């Protein structure tokens, strides 16, 4: 057949490398042998981009993920029109901003990150089920890189999605009078760290699993409690005391508290330093745990 010629060319180099590999005395760089990237983080960007490309080439997924925050903001946020029966000064003192809608908007920025992070574990499950995880594990790419790439892609996605939610909130009437460049950068840094931390948590929980039903159950088990037991939907000070303690232990509250200070000029429960400190610690600990667990759990 005619195809025999290029076929030969195709493996001549392989043969060359074979021979050089067999002859250790030939110290000269073998012809055609590529210089390998041996850094411990090699492959991180390739794996991250693989997931991101799937996401942005499938617009349906993106659109569907935006529907939920639109419903929360457009219906729930608009329906709870506290300004219609509470004087403006009261609204300001309870919510730390001029309307419940603006208060909820920041909560929704965090909420979409929570939901995106929760599903980051699913892609590990699917990669295991469809064999790709085994392929990746048989290459020299480090186990930690596999985990971090999942966390990173989810962090990047959630950041972009929460940016879109911010635009939607502004269109629907969010108070932008306190927006500053620094404030936006600061708020989104906090939200990104939160996304990174939560993705690490959910990816780690999914490392050993090849069962997506179990994974869905874990997501449902954690998602709404984490959202309700935070300051995303309602201010902490109107909650019963026991719940206030729970909210205090929920790291999401710190990201939202900081973001409200930076975007809405709200007084805030904690200082910005505390908010950043807690979220950064949380992110480092959970990502570290994910990497350590990957050494043990990422096996066939």
């Amino acid at each position, binding site marked *: 057949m005619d195809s025999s010629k290029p076929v030969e060319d195709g493996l001549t*180099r392989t043969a060359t490398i074979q021979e050089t590999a067999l002859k250790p005395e030939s110290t000269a760089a073998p012809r055609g042998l*590529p210089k390998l990237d041996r850094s411990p983080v090699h492959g991180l960007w390739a794996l991250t981009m693989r997931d991101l490309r799937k996401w942005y080439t499938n617009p349906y997924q993106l659109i569907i993920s935006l529907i939920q925050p639109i419903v929360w903001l457009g219906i729930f946020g608009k329906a709870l029109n506290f300004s219609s029966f509470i004087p403006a000064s009261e609204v300001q003192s309870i919510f730390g901003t001029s309307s419940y809608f603006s208060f909820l908007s920041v909560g929704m920025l965090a909420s979409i990150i929570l939901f995106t992070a929760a599903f980051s574990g699913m892609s590990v499950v699917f990669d295991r089920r469809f064999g790709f995880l085994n392929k990746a594990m048989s290459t020299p790419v480090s186990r930690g890189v596999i985990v971090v790439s999942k966390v990173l892609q989810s962090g990047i996605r959630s950041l972009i999605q929460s940016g879109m939610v911010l635009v939607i909130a502004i269109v629907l009437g969010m108070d932008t009078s306190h927006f500053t460049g620094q404030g936006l950068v600061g708020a989104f840094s906090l939200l990104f760290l939160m996304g990174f931390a939560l993705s690490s948590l959910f990816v780690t929980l999914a490392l050993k699993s090849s069962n997506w039903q179990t994974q869905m159950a874990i997501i449902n088990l954690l998602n709404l409690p984490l959202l309700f037991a935070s300051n995303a939907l309602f201010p902490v000070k109107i909650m019963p005391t026991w719940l206030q303690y729970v909210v205090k232990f929920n790291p999401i509250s710190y990201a939202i508290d900081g973001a409200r200070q930076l975007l809405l000029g709200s007084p805030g429960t904690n200082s910005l330093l505390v908010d950043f400190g807690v979220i950064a610690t949380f992110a480092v600990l959970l990502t570290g745990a994910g990497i350590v667990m990957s050494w043990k759990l990422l096996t066939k």
Partner: protein
Amino acid sequence: MIANQQTTEADSKAIVKVEGLTKTYDGKFKAVDGVSFEIEEGEIFGFLGPNGAGKSTTINMLTTLVAPSSGRAIVCGYDVHKQATEVRRNVGIVPQDYTADEDMTGMANILLCADLYGIPRSDSKPHAEELLKLVELQDAAKRKVKTYSGGMRRRLEIACGLINYPRLLFLDEPTLGLDVQTRAAVWKYIRMLKTEFHMTLFLTTHYLEEADSLCDRIAIIDHGHIIKLGTPEELKEGIGGDVIVVGVKEAEPDISSEISKIPLVKEVKKNGNDYRIKAEMGEEASPQIMDLIRSKGLHVTKISLTKPSLDEAYLELTGRTLREEESNKWAAMSQRVTMARARS
């Protein structure tokens, strides 16, 4: 460095050295039990055994995907347990499952593999094109893998397994569920890798025909043990000789006792005008038998020579009872998925 020391060891042409390799699951079930063997540079070595015999577990240990419970394996000069990353750099793997990402093109899949090996794009791009040509997928390179047939997927897996210029290629059930044409193509690639590129190949299979026609040496494995290791010929000889049937025009005289005096002949039975003879090395024995018959003034009307099939050897060694799947349910499901996709 370590590789150099290993390859200059005078006694060793072995690219794989396995000593007492064992994998125990849940402290009880021994999937692989004290297996020892060596694979020489440049040979095609086959692991043949029924489902659940321990073939895939062995391959997973040798490719560092599963940690051995005990024993030792040196692959390409590196210890699979202590130097896993080096082993991964030096071997190629064509897994039993389809591992390519269906949402990506064939080309993108190979390039992603190359990235995971840390091969720069300046090298991996031309090499990926060469490999796609090798497996005759160049026209489908830009199509998403979800549009591929089972045979195309298997060929893509082979191309991916070669992207890192491996010295040793592992193929786990490379023709499972494939049609005859694709199976022939896969066999062709396997032979080419050995003869033209001096690659060492390790393959597992439960198709006897495949092991017989491809492998230089075969290990028959069952219940986690190697029960026989040798060339296909040795394994077949182990079950006693070729069968030669000679038809003679004259029913009398009976020359059975004369035939049985030929050194290679082990057993003679006369049935009417036919002699049914069991012999070693049938090709050499049959002319001698013909000469003997003619020297007695008799006329040969027909002759046939049947070699024992590996099936016989295999069934003799592994028994004829049907196997219950003793592997876990996920492995069983993954195999079903693979079979289903292979047939698509």
